[in-house]
């Protein structure tokens, strides 16, 4: 799943959660969240990503890819980088799951 917003902040956290829920229920298996376009994440946005993780349940993974410096900083400071598997890029994440990158 690719996030097509520059920010996941308090202003769109609820919308993000709703959209994630709608998309996640249409597919099975692990989900990679491509955050390459996201240049800002605050604690509300982080809460929404955690909520997304919990929504998938213990049996499905949520992994993150393409973290910009501001997003990476939040993950480090909150130690959420110990909870989520983080890939450098979406293609690296897909390759790790044996999926060829889409053209």
């Amino acid at each position, binding site marked *: 799943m690719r996030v097509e917003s520059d920010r996941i902040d*308090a*202003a769109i956290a609820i919308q993000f959660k709703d959209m994630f829920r709608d998309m996640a229920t249409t597919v099975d298996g692990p989900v990679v969240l491509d955050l390459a376009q996201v240049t*800002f994440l605050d*604690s509300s946005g982080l*809460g*929404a990503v*955690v909520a997304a993780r919990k929504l998938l349940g213990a049996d499905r993974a949520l992994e993150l890819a393409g973290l910009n410096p501001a997003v990476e*900083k939040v993950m480090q*400071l909150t130690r*959420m980088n110990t909870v989520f598997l983080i890939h450098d890029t979406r293609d690296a994440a897909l390759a790790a799951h044996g999926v060829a990158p889409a053209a």
Partner: protein
Amino acid sequence: MTNLAFASRKPPAGAPPLIIGWCYRVGISATRDQVSQALVQLNQHLIGLGLARDALIAMELVLAEVMNNIVEHAYCDTGQGDVALEVIVHSNTIWCQLIDNGRPMPDGKLPPARHYDLEAMDILDLPEGGFGWGLIHDLTSSLSYDRSGAQNRLSLSIDLDC
């Protein structure tokens, strides 16, 4: 614009020599959308000044946390009320002051950082909130709060070489 007034302020005694002098003030209504828009605009100004990226990341994050706290807690998410922000870049530091007319902080003081032992937690027990004050305390080099009359005043600073 808001009806909130800033008291005149001076840099603290003994501050290092001035490298940049720059001041910015903005007043917004207490909504999440206005916070988001104000921060995008402020960041564009500061990028234009050529400030260090890491300091700007820290500042935007800290201001998002404190301003959304004002929206959600001081004004109880009513959307009614004003928030005034003043940013001064001076002496290798970004100084920020926030004023609002909302409810005071709990017990009249700054909330502490909350710490979680995430690695010991079950996935489904992970916290979805409570990170804000930890981020604010971690990223600021000074932080103070006072209630004067019906106003909350929060002052903080971020080092430009953080």
